[in-house]
C-alpha cells in the first residue's frame, strides 16, 4: 500500500505533467455542458450570425512615474467572455509624461492576412500620452500579452496576426491557447490585432479531415478490444 502522502504527491505530479502536456488551458479539465461564453459580437456580422449587442471598446489611463507606467495593467472588454484583453507589466510602456492612455476599439476587418481567413473583429490598439509617443520597453514588455477570443471553440483554433497600421502587412505572431477559444500572443504595442486561419487550418476546419468519425471509430475499437480481452481472460480461467 502506497502511503497517503506519496499518493497525493503522485497526483500532483500527474496533474502538473498533464497540464503541461495539454496545449491550451481548458477550463480546469472539463468544460462540461455548455460554454459560458455569449455569442461572438461582430462589428460586421457574417450571414447567419446571431443578433447581439455591439462589441465593446475600452479606454484606460496609466500613471507615468520615472518615464514609464507606474503599475501593471490588465484590461479587458465587457463581453462574456471578453473578446479582447491585454496585460502589460509595470514599467513596460515608456512616455516622457503621463498619463498613458490605452484605447482599444473593435473594427470590421477590411482585409485578411495573406492566404488566411479572418475570424472575428480586428482590434485596434492606440497608446497615447501628452508628452509624445509611447514605446514599449523590451526588457519589461517581453511578457506583455494580448488575448483574443475566437468566434467558436472548434479546433483548429486561429492564429493571431498583428500590423502597426493599415498600410503595413499582417504578420503572424507566436500564438498559443489560453482557454477553449481564447488565443494568446505577445502584445506588440499600438497597432491592429486579429485572429485568422491560415490556409491549412481553414481547410481542416471546413471539413478537410473527418476527425470526429475517426475518434468515434477509434473509441469503439478500443472498447471492443477491452471487451475482447475480458472475454479471452474469462475463457482461459
Amino acid at each position, binding site marked *: 500500500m502506497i502511503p*497517503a502522502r506519496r*499518493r*497525493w504527491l*503522485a*497526483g*500532483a505530479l*500527474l*496533474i*502538473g*505533467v*498533464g*497540464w503541461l*502536456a*495539454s*496545449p*491550451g*488551458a*481548458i*477550463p*480546469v*479539465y*472539463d*468544460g*462540461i*455542458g*455548455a*460554454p*459560458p461564453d*455569449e455569442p461572438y459580437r461582430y462589428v460586421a456580422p457574417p450571414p447567419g450570425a446571431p443578433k447581439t449587442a455591439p462589441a465593446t471598446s475600452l479606454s484606460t489611463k496609466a500613471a507615468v512615474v520615472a518615464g514609464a507606467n507606474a503599475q*501593471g495593467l*490588465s484590461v*479587458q472588454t465587457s463581453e*462574456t*467572455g*471578453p473578446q479582447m*484583453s491585454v*496585460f502589460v507589466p509595470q514599467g513596460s510602456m515608456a512616455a516622457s509624461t503621463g498619463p498613458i492612455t490605452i484605447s482599444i476599439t473593435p473594427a470590421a476587418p477590411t482585409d485578411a492576412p495573406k492566404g488566411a481567413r479572418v475570424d472575428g473583429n480586428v482590434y485596434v490598439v492606440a497608446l497615447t500620452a501628452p508628452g509624445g509617443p509611447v514605446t514599449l520597453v523590451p526588457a519589461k514588455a517581453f511578457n506583455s*500579452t494580448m*488575448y483574443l477570443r475566437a468566434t*467558436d*471553440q*472548434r*479546433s483548429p483554433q486561429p492564429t493571431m496576426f498583428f500590423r502597426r497600421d493599415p498600410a503595413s502587412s499582417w504578420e503572424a505572431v507566436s500564438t498559443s*491557447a*489560453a*482557454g*477553449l477559444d*481564447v488565443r494568446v500572443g505577445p502584445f506588440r504595442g499600438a497597432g491592429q490585432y486579429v485572429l485568422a486561419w491560415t490556409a491549412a487550418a481553414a481547410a481542416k476546419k471546413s471539413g478537410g479531415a473527418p*476527425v*470526429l468519425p475517426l*475518434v*468515434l471509430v477509434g*473509441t*469503439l475499437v*478500443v*472498447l471492443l478490444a*477491452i*471487451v475482447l480481452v*475480458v*472475454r479471452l481472460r474469462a475463457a482461459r480461467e
Partner: protein
Amino acid sequence: MTRVGLLLVAFAVAVGLRLSLGEPDVATDIPAALAFAVALLVVAAAAGTRVPLSRRAVLIGLAGLALVCAPVALEHLFTTRPVHGSQGFAGWAAAVVFVATAEEVFLRGALYDAAERVWGPSAAIVLGAVCFALLHVPLYGWHVLPLDLAVGLVLGGLRQGAGTAAAPAITHVGADLVGWFLR
C-alpha cells in the same frame, strides 16, 4: 459478455447519443449533455451502484479539488488572465453539476466497482481514466487527452482512497464550477 464489457458498451452508446444529439457543436449542447448524463445514471442504477457520502469522502473530495485546480489557479496568478464574471452562471452550473455527478457515478461508481472485482483497484482506476479521457476528445479535441487522462487517474485515486465515488464527484463538480471563473 462480462459486466465490465456491458458497462463499456453502454458507455460507448451514451457517448454516441451525446455526439449525435449535440451536432454540430457537441461541447456547447446542454440537452445532449443532459441526455448523456441520464443514460449514464440509468445504467449505473441498473447496475445497483451505491455512492455513500461520508465526512472522509467530502474532505478527500475537497483536497482533490484543490489539487486539480492548482495549475489553472497558479496560471491566473502569474499571468493575470481575465477572470470571468457570474452572469449566466446559475443555469450553466445546474447542468454541470448534474452531468459531472452522472459521469462520476458511472465511471468511478458502476464501472470502477465492476472492474475492481475482476482486476483489482489499479486496473479499475486506469480503465475509468481512459474512458474519461476518450469521452472528452470529441468535445474538445485531442489536445485535452493528456490532462484528462491525468485527471481521470487522480479521480480514480480519490475513489480508491475514499471508498466511494462521492469524493471524485465533489472534486469533479467543484473543478468544473471553478472552471467557469478561471477558463
